[in-house]
């Protein structure tokens, strides 16, 4: 979106690009560019390099490693990172629990957790959803009962992304069973090694293991791991989810997917011409590019307003970004499937083929699993139905 940027902003973007393409190992970026998954090790490497350069948590307060950037600069940073196929800093750390601790935590808790959260020495997972508390998150039932200077936690979380790699979990727990739904909830930090915690994997339809159930059976948690006030957790969660929704737009990631699709389509010959020249394929691609450009401009408008007026109250436009952004992500994954034709159908662990067989076209291992997997984008971070409800409420004023 060069037209909207000032000369300085363009120079800033260039600087970011240079950083990401020279400092983050090419081996990792090339693998991800070809559809590979980031390993736990990749995330660690990437975030630690960024952290060393003060670039892991630019949106945090400067005292805790943040940069005094404008919202537009933060956006350009994220965009250049995704376009360069850099594993982004772990959202659970940098977008979710970090800002909550920095905003609502005591000095002691900030000092204890923020540096390790920025450096990924602590890998956080998000313990919000429960089997019966999805969209209706406030109905959550996991309890924390105060016992001296500890809480005793019982209950179950689910859909916990990458809990198998995490060493800490931030949880919403019910501390006052008498209070009205939202009022009796607290925000508690729990070490995954605490006795009484069990993690059970959930396999998703793409064949991967990225979410889990987490069970708590009389888990004793030191009371000084409560963030902020007891029973004020819902406010912190709302603050967190507000940040999460603008984060999942990931325009840079969609643009990176489109660039990959264009690269591969140019090499894919159908009926004697490249797919890029196929009118039906090209029409779908072009429409997608127009919509992505529009959402990018919407992101910039929001950031621009935020830069001028300071962070506003949650605005229905953040729901617009989540809703449309997730749909465009999903469309991009589908175009890659269309591009591959019959080569997309095999389920393969990797791209190796026995001697004598043709090399598999790039994308044939990841296209369909990614398409299936990205159905999640319209379900999590507040489902798209929930976003529509927020928008409708705002414009119909009910």
């Amino acid at each position, binding site marked *: 979106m060069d037209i909207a940027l000032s000369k300085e902003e363009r120079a800033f973007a260039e600087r970011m690009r240079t950083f990401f393409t020279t400092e983050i190992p090419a081996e990792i970026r090339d693998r991800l560019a070809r559809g590979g998954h980031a390993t736990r090790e990749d995330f660690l490497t990437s975030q630690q390099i960024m952290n060393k350069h003060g670039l892991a948590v630019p949106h945090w307060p400067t005292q805790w490693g943040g940069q005094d950037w404008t919202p537009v600069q933060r956006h350009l940073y994220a965009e250049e990172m995704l376009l360069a196929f850099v594993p982004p800093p772990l959202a659970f750390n940098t977008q979710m629990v970090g800002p909550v601790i920095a905003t609502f935590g005591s000095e002691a808790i900030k000092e204890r957790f923020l540096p390790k959260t920025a450096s990924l020495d602590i890998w956080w997972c998000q313990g919000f959803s429960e089997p019966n508390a999805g969209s209706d998150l406030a109905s959550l039932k996991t309890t924390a009962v105060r016992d001296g200077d500890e809480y005793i936690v019982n209950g179950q979380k689910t859909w916990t992304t990458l809990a198998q790699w995490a060493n800490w979990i931030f949880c919403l727990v019910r501390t006052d069973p008498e209070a009205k739904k939202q009022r009796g909830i607290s925000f508690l930090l729990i070490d995954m090694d605490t006795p009484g915690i069990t993690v059970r994997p959930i396999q998703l339809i793409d064949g991967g293991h990225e979410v889990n159930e987490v069970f708590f059976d009389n888990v004793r948690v030191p009371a000084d791991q409560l963030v902020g006030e007891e029973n004020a957790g819902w406010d912190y969660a709302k603050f967190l989810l507000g940040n999460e929704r603008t984060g999942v737009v990931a325009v840079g990631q969609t643009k990176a997917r489109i660039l990959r699709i264009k690269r591969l389509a140019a090499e894919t010959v159908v009926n004697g011409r490249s797919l890029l020249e196929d009118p039906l394929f090209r029409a779908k691609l072009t429409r997608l590019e127009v919509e992505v450009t529009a959402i990018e401009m919407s992101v910039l408008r929001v950031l621009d307003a935020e830069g001028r007026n300071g962070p506003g109250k949650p605005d229905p436009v953040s729901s617009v970004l989540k809703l449309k952004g997730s749909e465009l992500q999903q469309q991009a994954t589908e175009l890659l499937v269309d591009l591959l034709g019959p080569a997309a159908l*095999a389920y393969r662990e990797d791209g190796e*083929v026995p001697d004598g067989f043709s090399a598999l076209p790039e994308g044939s291992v990841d296209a369909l699993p990614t398409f299936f997997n990205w159905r999640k984008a319209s379900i999590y971070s507040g489902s798209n139905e929930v976003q529509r409800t927020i928008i409708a409420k705002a414009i119909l004023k009910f």
Partner: protein
Amino acid sequence: MELDLTDEQRMLGDAVKSLLDKRYDANARLALLESSGPEHWSRELWKQYAELGLLGLTFDEQYGGAGMGVGELAVVMEAFGRALILEPFIATVVLGGQLIAAAGTPEQKSTLLPAVAEGSTLLAFGYTEPASRWSLTDITTTATPSGDGWTISGEKIAVLGGDVADQLLVTATTPDGAVGLFLVAGADVVRDTYQLQDGLGAADVLLSDSPAVAVGSPADALAHIESVLDVATAVLCSEAVGAMDRMLWLTVDYLKTRVQFGQPISVFQALQFRSADMYVSLEQARSMALVARLSLADDDVAERRRAVQAAKIQIDTSSRHIGLEAIQLHGGIGMTMEYPVGHYVKRTTVIAKTFADTDTLVEIVGAGGGLITAG
């Protein structure tokens, strides 16, 4: 006009359904899918399909078949779609068996069809290649005369049932430019076997001077292959309808039982409308599957093909809509392996890329003048 099933078809459908209800619930299927052996389907059920006469359903009685028509095959496939069976039925019966029945010599029919019908021989049909997409003619595999027979060289990909086939039917270009159909023994090819995204077995197949016999005459093969693919596409539409029907009802049942905000989420009008739209898509698909099936009786090949292709466009469009909505309306649970709905979505997604994808068909049907023409 008579659009309803015949009594005979209804009985056949009930018999298949009652077997599958007993043997193919979601857990039994998952156990097959995740079994550690190389085969993710049931040979024992295969025998039962044979006993029910399903494996020779459309073959002539003189070849051990039941002599039934495509209507009956469609009924069976719809039931298979509802249960999401993993056995290589399309590969062996719908494609392999019907290709032999259509193109084979009397001798080939009398050796192969009874063996297929009784369940002792598995077949597969390989025609897609690394660079052919779904074109039958844009292929590089070659057939060279050799003694009484032929040798075949080339590579076929995504061969449905190619992992277990005892014999493979493959397309190859002869020296005089015809796309012929050839029968190759499983032992004479090299296979890279895998499961497709929907769990069905398949293989990429390498042929290097593999000995082969021509199925019928190479000069006539292409027309037979095209006709069999018309039938296969039409009954694939029926399978997809069965799968879509299950996705809709799984979703509706879930909406009625899932409680959020203190009430079943089926009370939210937003979700009621979404399920109504799914139902509309299902009915559209059902109607076009019927168009496809009825058109197979049309002697005008071009008309028949156009109708079948149009049907698959609708089936793909409907199943995409229904499948993606089914996951979305389930929320997280819809994305899990443990829960059935995602498996249906995977199957219909693979169906949408089987025999041709939507864009290919839209292009062909449109270029051919479309469907609604002044009369």
